């Protein structure tokens, strides 16, 4: 109960800090809009005919979701941790009952909510302005939400690690870009495995985003088994959350 109220206090403050930054709110939710408009509408898909998007439109839904699932927590949590360090906030929090895991949980919840909203925008736009054929019912939607939540935990944890190790906010942004961009394109999101060299394909299994993309694709497009991916992603979420909580500084 007390841990829950501490997490609520932290999450409420973090949520207010976010929603009161109009520019941040606008671009956080405008980002998925331009993503869909550019890649799903303007560029379009040409199934079987080669080109940039050679698969059916529905194939790329996990990719669009992956963009927000990956970039939002990495940059937001990373820079939040960096700002906390620069403002001596962790020094103060270390003298309160709030634990590092509770702090990260609160910020993960806020990020999961933001990503969830952005994900809904993506799903809505995919349904409205593209010819994507998606197999989404209430259950599969809940399972997609579970994938989004678990992936958010993974990348919030990674963001916390980056924010704790980089020496500035600029460093966090540079590091998160350097990590996120290769992950995005080498995790079965937009680039199909057959476009990559055979020797490299096993390396895709090292990316947490691969399990997110595979699982969501099975749920929304292919209709195959997704349980293994969900399980692996859950394990990774635990590991990354623990690493992130451990990395958050309690001392200078």
């Amino acid at each position, binding site marked *: 109960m*007390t841990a829950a*109220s*501490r997490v*609520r*206090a*932290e999450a*409420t*403050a*973090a949520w*207010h*800090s976010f929603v*009161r*930054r109009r520019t941040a709110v606008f671009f956080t939710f405008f980002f998925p809009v331009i993503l869909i408009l550019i890649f799903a509408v303007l560029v379009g898909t040409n199934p079987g005919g080669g080109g940039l998007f050679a698969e059916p439109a529905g194939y790329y839904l996990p990719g669009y979701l992956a963009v927000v699932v990956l970039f939002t927590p990495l940059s937001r949590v990373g820079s939040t941790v960096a*700002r906390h360090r*620069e*403002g*001596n*906030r962790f*020094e*103060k*929090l*270390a*003298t*309160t*009952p*709030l634990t590092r895991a509770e702090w990260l949980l609160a910020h993960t919840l806020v990020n999961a909510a933001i990503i969830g909203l952005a994900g809904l925008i993506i799903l809505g736009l995919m349904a409205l302005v593209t010819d994507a054929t998606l197999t989404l019912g209430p259950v599969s939607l809940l399972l997609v939400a579970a994938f989004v939540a678990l992936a958010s935990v993974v990348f919030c944890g990674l963001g916390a690690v980056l924010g704790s190790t980089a020496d500035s906010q600029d460093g966090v942004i540079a590091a998160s870009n350097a990590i996120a961009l290769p992950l995005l394109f080498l995790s079965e999101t937009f680039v199909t495995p057959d476009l990559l060299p055979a020797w490299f394909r096993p390396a895709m299994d090292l990316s947490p985003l691969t399990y997110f993309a595979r699982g969501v694709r099975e749920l929304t497009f292919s209709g195959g088994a997704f349980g293994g991916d969900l399980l692996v992603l859950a394990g990774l979420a635990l590991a990354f959350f623990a690493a992130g909580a451990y990395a958050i500084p*309690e*001392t*200078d």
Partner: protein
Amino acid sequence: MTDAIVAEGLRREYGDTAALDGVSLSVGAGEVFALVGPNGAGKTTLVRALTGTTTLDSGSVSVLGDHPRNLDRSRLGLLPQSFDPPERLTARELVAYYAGLYDEARDPGSVLESVGMDDDATWYEKLSGGQQRRTCVGTALVNDPDVLFLDEPTTGIDPAGRRALWSLVEDLAASGTTVFLTTHDMAEAERLADRVGLLADGRLVAVGSPAELVAEFGGRTRVVVDLTTDTTDIPASADAAASALADAGFEVETTDDSLVVRGVSPEDIGEVVAALDAEAVAYDALAWTEPDLEDAFLELAGRSVADGDPTALAGMNDDVGENHGETAVAEGDR
């Protein structure tokens, strides 16, 4: 008096620099302890060591009988130096946020009232520097701590606000809260502290009550004469007056535009004025002052810097932990 804070042989190095070099001290329950020292002396590192927010190379800390990291955190309050709380929250929301981290906390409105914050609806970053600092002090009070660490609490606060915070600290001390504060404001230390510690180059070079430190290191009473002169040389008349006063047994120091006569009791002021008049010395102002904590601070800090080896003053370090109500100094340096 029970000790609320006990530190033994604290050492913390950053690279080749020892931020803390064998600091030992104790602070009694309900005591107000002020830590003063030049910039870079290690004050903030010492606060971090005492609150468990830095790792020590050696030494031990106990707060209310426990290591600060193992302590029931609701008993501790901290205002860090250069503290920048989360953005886009009003003063009330900020205090409420920190209150929400404790099982039991004070009403945010009463906390803000106690720190003299009447504006609780403006975002923190849009408040004035003084209002921001008051709000930050409020965040350290929400849990009604038994031990309160304030790292330069009045920095940036106007004189009226400073006095309001002084009253607040006095009230907290009266209610039994142990207060450990750092400050550059000697008037603040002199007014609030039961004991003052001077930290220089990572060493605690003196500890005592403000009165004891002033008596020990503040020097003598003095008359400062601001000479009327438009040259860079001291007027011959002032030189002659200085000689006459020296002959009369006073310690006289001259600068380009002033005479400082030391060891002048109130009864001797007339003698100084007479000596100035006898030589027709022109002066703009004449002031008699008693030594204060700033004089003691300058003396001690000056010795430390001049010696380049603070150990000359810090031989008492092993003793200060046991030393309540006594001035602790290095005998060889007095």
